[in-house]
């Protein structure tokens, strides 16, 4: 694909710069440009996904410095999928923001595109330090977006979020420093080769830094015990920002998949599969506590934030099983949960706007002014997120349960996932009835109607669940291919460093056995 691979990183950057220059020309120009760039990005990421389908690794070396000496972007099925998912979510989030939210402060679209640049960079990079840099880009843009619009609630949530993430960045750098000091490289493919060849003294320190990396990615993904920042931050952010943040936790999940299946994957010698004892239990506990949070939330936005925690717990537990089936199921569930939690954040905002001062709190208030429309949308989105048939949540959870069946941990996995889904079902039906049935007749009703663009964005994201269910067959076969590509680190190593870079352990055993 040549230079096309760098477009998902460069186009948002260029757009952000141009948006800064035309900031004085009014909201129309700003919105048009933002939308245009987003549509172009959508086309490019769809083309990239199409080109990744043949399973070839495409490597883009900055300044033609070949890996492992230079910094590379690597496009495989997983990164292409993540870039496309980000773009789709961002497109509808930004369309929702056209209802006026983007004008509540300055430079909304600039920050939005910078965030996209960081996200796409994180998904495409093949270098650990570059991953850190992309994390920082997406974080600093997210700080601005979280605070966009202002207010005491946002200042407080923003302060916590920024401080936590700065501490996380310090840990990331320490881990990167130890890894570089021990192995002498930061290119992910080369790291995988060097990890397998590490001496016992090096292994101990590399092990420590790998676990430090897991802490950092766990903080981004909102994994237990590092998820306490999430409900506050996501509930305080404006709706389109919260919807975009639905992909931010997935960056942590993606990084865990990338680093712990590749660098510390099955070929890593003594350090092989070092994440295995951690991911499954942490994921399941996160899932369980997230479900309690969903049940206990007193405000719809908070509830959706806890649904994000639930989805992260589910994903990490599935990745922790480390089989092709479970990773494939996790990928399907990842696409579904990102889009549907994004839709729910937007919907919660639309509902809150029509309930006056009560907002999205789950206590009696005036009936919303478009009850049939909002209640139907809420009903569909709730079905999808809880995992009832016929929508994508059901298929996702079915795939997850099937992938865990027959394994040693099947009882735990099934029990936690099913009970958590049941709790989410109770919670969502309770919120639905609290909002649409237990209305307070005495309260003053608002007569605001949903902005057409807002309705379009919510409809499109909710409909995505139906599309994911209709095309489940081709999607799962793509997810299977992706998982198969991901689970064997040699694919990536050979794809980036060439076919002679490393022999598999079985090949090496055969060579040693030969006289």
């Amino acid at each position, binding site marked *: 694909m040549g230079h096309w691979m760098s477009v998902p990183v460069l186009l948002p950057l260029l757009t952000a710069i141009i948006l800064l220059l035309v900031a004085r020309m009014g909201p129309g120009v700003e919105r048009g440009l933002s939308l245009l760039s987003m549509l172009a990005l959508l086309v490019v990421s769809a083309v990239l996904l199409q080109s990744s389908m043949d399973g070839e690794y495409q490597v883009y070396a900055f300044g033609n410095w070949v890996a492992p000496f230079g910094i590379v972007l690597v496009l495989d099925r997983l990164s292409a999928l993540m870039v496309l998912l980000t773009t789709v979510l961002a497109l509808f989030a930004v369309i929702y923001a056209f209802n006026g939210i983007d004008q509540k402060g300055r430079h909304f679209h600039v920050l939005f595109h910078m965030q996209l640049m960081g996200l796409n960079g994180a998904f495409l990079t093949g270098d650990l*330090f570059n991953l850190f*840099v992309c994390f*920082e880009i997406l974080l*600093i843009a997210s*700080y601005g977006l979280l*605070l966009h619009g*202002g*207010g*005491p609630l946002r*200042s*407080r949530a*923003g*302060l*916590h979020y*920024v*401080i936590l993430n*700065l*501490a996380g*960045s*310090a840990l990331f*750098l*320490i881990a*990167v*420093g*130890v890894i*570089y*000091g021990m192995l002498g490289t930061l290119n992910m493919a080369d790291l995988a080769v060097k990890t397998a060849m590490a001496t016992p003294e090096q292994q101990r320190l590399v092990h420590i830094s790998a676990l430090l990396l897991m802490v950092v990615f766990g903080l981004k993904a909102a994994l237990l015990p590092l998820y306490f920042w999430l409900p506050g931050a996501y509930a305080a952010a404006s709706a389109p920002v919260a919807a975009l943040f639905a992909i931010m936790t997935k960056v942590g999940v993606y990084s865990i998949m990338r680093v712990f299946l590749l660098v510390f994957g099955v070929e890593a010698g003594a350090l092989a599969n070092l994440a295995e004892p951690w991911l499954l239990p942490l994921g399941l506990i996160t899932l369980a506590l997230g479900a309690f949070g969903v049940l206990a939330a007193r405000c719809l936005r908070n509830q959706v934030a806890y649904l994000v925690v639930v989805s992260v717990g589910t994903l990490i537990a599935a990745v922790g099983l480390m089989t092709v089936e479970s990773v494939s199921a996790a990928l399907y569930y990842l696409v579904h949960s990102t889009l549907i939690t994004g839709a729910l954040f937007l919907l919660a905002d639309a509902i809150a706007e029509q309930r006056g001062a009560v907002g999205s709190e789950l206590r009696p208030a005036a009936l919303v002014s478009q009850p049939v429309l909002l209640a139907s949308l809420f009903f569909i989105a709730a079905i999808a997120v809880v995992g009832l048939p016929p929508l994508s949540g059901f298929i996702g959870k079915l795939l997850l349960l099937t992938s865990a069946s027959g394994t040693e941990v099947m009882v735990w996995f099934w029990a936690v996932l099913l009970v958590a889904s049941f709790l989410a079902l109770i919670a969502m039906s309770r919120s639905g009835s609290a909002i649409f049935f237990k209305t307070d007749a005495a309260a003053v009703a608002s007569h605001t109607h949903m902005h057409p663009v807002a309705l379009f964005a919510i409809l499109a994201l909710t409909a995505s669940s139906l599309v994911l269910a209709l095309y489940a067959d081709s999607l799962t076969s793509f997810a299977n291919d992706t998982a198969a590509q991901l689970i064997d680190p040699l694919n990536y190593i050979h794809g980036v460093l060439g076919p002679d870079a490393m022999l598999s352990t079985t090949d090496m055993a055969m060579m040693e056995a030969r006289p």
Partner: protein
Amino acid sequence: MEALIALAIGVLVACGIYMMLRARTMDVVIGLTLLSYAVNLFLFASGRLTNNAAALISPDAAAYADPLPQALVLTAIVIGFGMTAFLVVLAIRAFGDLGNDHVDGEGRK
């Protein structure tokens, strides 16, 4: 030299964590700054501590200094500097919005 650098990093981390655990925004900012100093020193040392080693390729050099950690440190310093500036502004903003400098915004007025 190793002991001195290790001691300096250790003291900086300890002071940084102590300051970060104090629940006042400016203390936390100072704590994070100290921690990022420690991290920068640490990254710098990850390329090994060498004296008088050549930075560029020369025919009679016995050893080379590793240039990569210096590039990493430079990036980390720039990012850390920007983040600290942002955090200071945010802390001032939070003080204005919440009326006090407690990180939870609910300390004694």
